[in-house]
Structures are given as C-alpha cells and as structure tokens.
C-alpha cells in the first residue's frame, strides 16, 4: 500500500477545490471498497478526500412526492428509514441483502454507487485486466467467469456490477445529483453507468472529479408493491449471483405498469425494458411472466460457466412477479 494524504473537508466547495487541485486525489466514503482496493494496489490515490463530513447525510421528502437521499447516508440508515421501507421496499431490501451489518454501517450511498466489480482478475494487479489496465487483455473470458455477465458485456470485458442497492435504484428510475467541474448535473440512473464496449475502464458517465451529492427517488405510488430478491452462494454476506428488483402495478388481473431490474448479470444494474414492455397491458399470469422473462433473456450471451444465470434470473423474475401479484 502506497502512502497517501488524507483530508476531511466540511464544505462541498472545499472538497471540489481539493479534488481539482491535487493530481490523484480521490473521494472517500465509508472506505469499504476503496481502502480494500488500495491494499491490493488496484487503487493508488495520492490523497483521500473524505466526504463523510459534508452535509450529505439525510433522507428528505421531495416536493413532487419522491424522496431525496444524501450521498453520505450510511447504507444501514437508508435501509432502516421508514419512508424507504414503506414507499420503496425493494430498495430497503436490496441494501439489507448486501454485505454485512458492519459494512453497511460504514458504506455510503455515494460509495455504493461507485463500488467496483468483484471480478477476481480486476482485483489482482499481477494479472492482466482491460478494466484496470486498458488493452492488457481479459483473462476472465476463458478463465473464471461463473459470476460474470451474460448481458451487456463486450469482447473486452464481462465484469458484473456488484451493487444490490443500484439494482433497486435502476428499477425506480433514480436520479443521481452530482457536482462536476463544469457545475451541477442531474443524471438519470439509466445514463449513469456505461456498458464496457471499447472502454471497460470507464464505468460511468461522470467527469473526473465528480462529487455525488444526492440521489432522488421520483414519486411512484405503486413502488410500495415492490420486492428485491437476491440469490447467492451462502445465506448471508455474499455478493449476488443473480438478483431482481421488481415493482408491480396490477389491477383487475392486468399489469398496468411494471419495473424490473436485474443484478449480477451485466456490467451495469440491468433494467429489463424488454420484459417490462412485453408485460404492460397483459394479464398478470405466470405464463405472461415467463414470456416476459424470456423476452429479456433471449439476448443473453452466456459463456461456458455462467449459463446457469439464465434460468436463475428467469426464475427469480417469474417468482417475484407472482409474489407481487399475490401481495397486491
């Protein structure tokens, strides 16, 4: 681990000035991902700018009936917040399904959004990895990829985004508020993450030095009928091998509207637009749910060892939809 400086500004303007002023400066949230990557030598920041003293630890109501969550809000506080649990239950469930109690107490919303992939090659600096060192190669494709992407990958990278929280945010069309050198910007979550394509090293559309300040959850009354389901290799404290966040608006046995996002299957939290499309206006039946899931997974490009994810997420989608019909 390289030596580094440490700052803890209390004002956003100071934080932004610091990040602009020092080459190799990085923001630090709870540090549960960044510090691990520093120990591994994957990240080598010159200075850490701790953002947890900034005034971003809040959850408030927005005028339009949505919720606004400060980027410094700890994951455990987010999951425990009554408004989140009542109005966006899938989000609370997703956060609670992640990591461990200790980690959630430290982890922040901003840091969770920007956590890096768990691809084993990415985490080992003695090995090639296009994401870590552009053009060095992708050993995962022929190597260990049983938990890597079946959707949205490229020849250069098939990493999965590991965040549970971001899957729920994708389903709810969250908006990420950032301060960039050019000024503030509101980035819909659908535009926040990038697919790897030719540049797997670029994971978001943020400008270097961007500071995440808040995340807005737009009003969505029927989001109260939502659920997060995560499959994993042990009962707790492990990353997803497949997950779904689903919100369902059903009336008279018909699907009025639906949101589906998938986790652990793609380099980004994967919004299943095709499945949603095929369901709107259809009867809320298991048959329709299966067809919808297939409509999405038709596009899957599994590799040798991750084919199981296709039936896994299909089953998760169908089951969760059925459960939401029963709940509504």
């Amino acid at each position, binding site marked *: *681990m*390289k*030596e580094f400086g440490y700052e803890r500004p209390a004002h956003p303007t100071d934080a932004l000035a610091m990040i602009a002023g020092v080459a190799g400066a990085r923001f630090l949230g709870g540090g549960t991902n960044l510090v691990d990557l520093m120990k591994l*030598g994957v990240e080598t920041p010159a200075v850490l700018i701790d953002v947890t003293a900034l005034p971003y630890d809040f959850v408030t109501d927005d005028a339009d009936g949505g919720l606004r969550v400060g980027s410094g809000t700890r994951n455990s506080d987010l999951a425990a917040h009554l408004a989140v649990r009542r109005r966006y239950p899938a989000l609370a469930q997703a956060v609670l399904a992640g990591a461990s109690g200790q980690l959630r107490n430290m982890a922040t919303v901003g840091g969770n959004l920007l956590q890096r992939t*768990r691809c*084993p090659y990415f985490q*080992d600096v*003695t*090995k090639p990895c296009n994401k870590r060192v552009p053009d060095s190669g992708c*050993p995962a494709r*022929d*190597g*260990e990829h*049983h938990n890597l992407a079946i959707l949205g990958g490229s020849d250069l990278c098939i990493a999965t985004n590991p965040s549970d929280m971001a899957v729920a945010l994708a389903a709810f069309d969250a908006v990420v508020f950032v301060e960039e050198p050019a000024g503030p910007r509101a980035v819909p979550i659908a535009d926040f993450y990038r697919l790897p394509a030719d540049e797997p090293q670029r994971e978001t559309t943020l400008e270097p030095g961007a500071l995440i300040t808040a995340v807005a959850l737009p009003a969505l009354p029927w989001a109260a009928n939502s659920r997060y389901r995560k*499959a*994993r*290799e*042990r*009962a*707790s*404290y*492990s*990353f997803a*091998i*497949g997950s779904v966040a689903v919100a369902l608006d059903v009336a008279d046995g018909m699907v009025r509207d639906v949101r589906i996002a998938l986790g652990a299957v793609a380099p980004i939290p994967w919004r299943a637009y095709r499945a949603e499309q095929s369901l709107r206006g259809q009867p809320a039946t298991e048959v329709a749910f299966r067809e919808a899931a297939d409509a999405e997974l038709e596009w899957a490009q599994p590799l040798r*060892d*991750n*084919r*199981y*994810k296709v*039936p*896994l997420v299909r*089953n*998760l989608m*169908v*089951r969760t939809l059925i459960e939401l019909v029963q709940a509504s």
Partner: protein
Amino acid sequence: MSGTVGAPVSRIEGLSKVTGEARYAADFPLAGLAHGWIVQSTIARGRVESVDAGAALQMPGVLAVVTATNAMRLQDVDDGELLVLQDQQVHYRGQTVALVVGDTLEQARAAADGLPVEYQAEPHDVLLSASHPRLFAPDHVNPNLPTDTLTGDVEAGLAGAAVTVDHTYSTPAEHNNPMEPHATTAFWDGDRLTVYDSNQGATRVHQALVRLFGLEDSAVRVVSEHVGGGFGSKGGARSQAVLAAMAARMLGRPIRVVLSRKQLFSLVGYRTPTIQRVRLGSDRGGRLVALDHQVVEQTSTVYEFAEQTAVFSRVMYATPNLSTSHRLVALDVPTPRWMRAPGEAPGSFAVESAMDELAEACGVDPIELRIRNEPVTEPEGGRPFSSRNLIACLREGASRFRWAERDPRPGTRRDGQWLMGTGVAASTYPARSAPSTASVSAQEDGSFIVRLTAADIGTGARTALTQVAADELQVPMDKVEVRIGDSDFGPAMIAGGSMGMASWGWVVVKACRQLIADIDRCGGVPDDGLVARADTADDIAAQADLVRHSFGAQFAEVRVDVDTGEIRVPRLLGVFAAGRIVNAKTARSQLIGGMTMGLSMALFEESLMDAEFGDYLNHDFAGYHIAANADVQRIDATWIDEEDDQLNPLGVKGIGEIGIVGTAAAIANAVYHATGQRQRHLPIRPDRVLSP
C-alpha cells in the same frame, strides 16, 4: 475425587482472550522489533532471474531485502517448503522470492509491493485430472499408511454382484483459513533463538528450526501460548518462522513476519482436490461383495504430500473383496497438507454418497444398509476393533431425528419453492496416541503446576488438561495450573490427528500418578517442592495391536430452492462414539464446529485454480465462502457413553476431526432426497444444482 472430568467446564483462558490480555505470536512487544513482508512469485514455474533491491533499499525505513542471493544458508531438511530463499527455482505461483524488512510493517510492505523481480518463466501444469500422464503411486500415504491395499478379488466380486454402483466423486481444493494467520516473532540472544510462533505444536517447530539452523536442541525455544486456530495448517513449522529467524539472525534484531489472508492461500497448505472412483457390488439385500475406492490427487514439486483419502474404506464396511488405491501427480502448485480430517473428510464424501446410491439401488433403507454391512473385524487386515459403536450411533441418531417417518422417495416433498429432503452418512476417525512428555510439580502451598508442550488452538485443551490433572491429584481445578506451548517443557504430540487429549492426557495422568506416589513416599511435599516427570513412549509402544477408531452418524435435513438452486440446512445432527468425553462443553463445540466445517465443505468451500496463471483465484473471504451464521440453523451434536480400556488411561478417542467426517455426504444425500438429482461434486453450488 473432585470429578471434573466430563463436566461442561468453561475455558480457563476465555476472559484473557476476550479482554485482549492473551498474547498471540504477533502480539509480543520487543525493543527494536522490525517487520518482514513476504514477496511472492508471479509465475508458477521457472526461475528468478533478478531482484532489483536498489530502489527499495532507498525507501524510508527499509532495512533489508533478503533474496536467494543474500539469504542465510540453511541446513537441508526433508521439507522443501521450509528451505526458503535457498535457490532461484520457482515451483508454484505465490512462492516466497524475497523478504523485505522494514522498521514498520507499512514500510516493509510498501517496498515489497513495488519490488522489481525478473523471471524466466516456463510453461506450468496446474490442473489435476484422472488421466494425467504423470500420475504415480506414492511410497505411502499420510501419515505412513500403505498406498494400495487389496483383499480378495474385487473384479470378480463386482462381476458376480447382483447390484453395482460405479461413480466418480470429486472434491475441490479447500483452504484451512484459521482465524489467526500464521505469524512468528523471532529474536536471537547470542546463539540462542527464541520464536513466538503460531502453531499446533511447538515441538515440531522446535525440531525444524534446530535442523534448519544447525543448532543444539537447547539453543532453540518455541513459545506458542495462545493460537487462533490451525485446522491442520499449523501442524508443522511454516516458512514464516524460518524467515523471521533467518532475518533476525542476519539483521541482529527481533523480526516479526505475519502472513496476510491472501498469503495463506499459497504458503501454508490446503486440502488437495480429489477425484474418487468408487465401485460397490452387493447382493440384492445390499450386502457388499466388493468395494473398490480409487483416488487421484495432487501434490507439489517441493514436497510430497499424499492424502490418505481411501483409508476410510479400509475400516468401514464388511466385504470379502476390498481394494483401495491412491495416485498422485506433482503439479506446479503450492503443497497440499493436512486439513481437518485429511483422508477421512473427502474420502467419506465419496463412499458415503456411494452407499446412499447403493441403498436406493437395492431399495434398502440407508441406515439398515449400513447395519447389514457392519464388520466384526477390520475389513482390511482383519484386526479386532478396540470398540466400535457405529450402529449405536445410527440408531440413536435415527430416533432423535425421527428417521422412521421418512419417505424414501426422492423429489417428492415441497413447501412453496423449497424441495425438502433428509440424508444420513457415517463417520469415523482413528483414535491414536503419540509419545509425549510432561512434568508436574507440587508447590509448598498445595498447588500444582503441570508443564507440557501441548497446544491449545482454541479447542479448550488447556482447560481439559486442567480437569484431568485436578482429578488425578484430587484437588479442585484452581489448585492446578497447566502451562503449555513452550518447547522448553520437552517433546510432546501436536494438536493434530485428533490425538491431543489422548497423548497429552495420558502423559499428564502418568506424571500426576508418579507425583502422588512420590509424595506418599516422602510423606508429604518437601519444603522445596517436588517434581515428577513422565514419558509415554514405552507405554504406547506396548499397546496391543488393535484397530482404534471413533465412529459417528450424521443426519441432515435440507431445503433446495427450485428457482435458484440455493440450499439451506435447517437441521444437522451428529451422534458420536468417541470414548470418554473430558469436557462436555468444549467437546460439543469441537463436534458442532467440525460439522459446521463439513456443511461449509458440502455447500461453499472451493479454491478455484486458475489454469492460465496457476494460482488459487478466490483468495479472500469475499471470494472463498465459509459458512456464515445464517447458514447454520439447528445444529446438534451428542455422544453415546463409550468405555474402551484399550485406548489410554483416560479412555478418550479424540473429537477434533470426526465432526467433519460424513457431514458433506449426509447433506449431499439429503439434496438427492430433496431433488432426485445426485450431486457428486463438491461444493453443491447453486449453479451446479441449476445446471447439473
């Protein structure tokens, strides 16, 4: 007689551990202490061409870069893993190629991270397969058992069998991962070396250091008062002890070397992957006429370790035709070593799964099948058992688990998305003792001090030995202090092979009895105290030629999520016959700990070998899954009263390992009962359930 043996006594050192007062190997403060950090090879085979220490030595606080070029020369020993930095050869990825020493750990580590090492790489061979061209028959298997055995004619037996089962089962590499990583603090006082070392037996570490550094026995002291687990990986000296001692000698300062979690995945051993073909032949009623167990496994090119995977079959079931074999291939991989119940743990998975398959093929209840195949004498060799209570365990377990209510048909019980099933498997583990020495001294104030080089790796051994000594001396426990983990106390068995209590308890009993006789002879304790010493070498050599084993039965209930392939284990029950139980509380912890590790083996633990780079890829706790609390639901271990006067004066058989034997098979058999799909490869991950 105060009679504490058998009671559920809490750990004596519990308070000092939870308050942080207990000192582990890396906790000893020493003036002038410097820190070593290991640099590991990034190729799996070849040579180190050069190590450029120039820049590192300019970094703040860096004291030395020890490499094969400048390292102190060691005397030859039979374990290549200990001959660190003696030549330029690279035998596996992750091998030690340098030790960077700094004033602080951080300084050493920063320099180590950037140390330029040039290699000449050669193509490596790291994948085990049953058709590997370089398979060979080792001279013997661990610890010193025949590689192959044959009784009768297995082929003829199989050919004539009414029912046969012939399948290949495999288990992955698994890493021991004790809570406390391997660590050593070493210093020299003139020509006398002292190491604070984390190990399962200071005697073996002492012997290794004496040989490697060419010293007298009295010139080396190994102190290991508290040890945070080992699971076999600390059974002998590991290279960090050698590096610390070497660097301390070279620099004339105390040196500490602590391994990182990641380094534990290449430097201290692991359980070999196994590929096991099991062939069973029986009559229609399930009575075996042939059993063949063929094992393929790996070792490294540095040290030959041959796991005794098939020995399970040599003791379990009666059959006139029985053969077992082990074949090994030396790959460019780290050296596999002992991991809790080496041999029996992976071997029982294969054979106890195959027995379940046979039970189904014959339409016989799996418990009844085992009862029908209960041998009178050892199936291989024909020696009598000192005691054998497998059937009693099966029956007791069946009644507690309500086995009689079980519907044998697979894949028929469902609760929502969960398929439910139950399974059973048998366990066994040898009950051996090894020569040890101890002393007991009577103090003027009526208290006693017992000294022996035992190790308490978290098992409760110190407490159990205190109970044993108190009972023998007929005083309350607080009148006895048991000091352990110091090679100055004389040679003793390690905490391994489930032999700790049998070996140490024996010598403590012997020393206490000697002391009482001496006190009687002297008419009391003289003013300057009295000391008795004992050695059990002759007693053990004089033991009758019997087969001594503990046995057990494991029962599992599982739920399998039809949508995701996730498996939950709502119930685990183990019933064991393991001789006398000295401490009901710590024994129960050992047994449920073993079963938990067996559950972990069944469902989670798997070190993934990367074919391209030649290392175990998932070398951290986010990637290498060990059962979490949420995975362990209702778990219970119990034992039947077993008296066996052919073991040792205490009548104990040992309980450290049997808990992990058979658990994985019981769970796999329950998964079959739930789903109708046989899982012959561990761990039973969701992807393997979903796409078999």
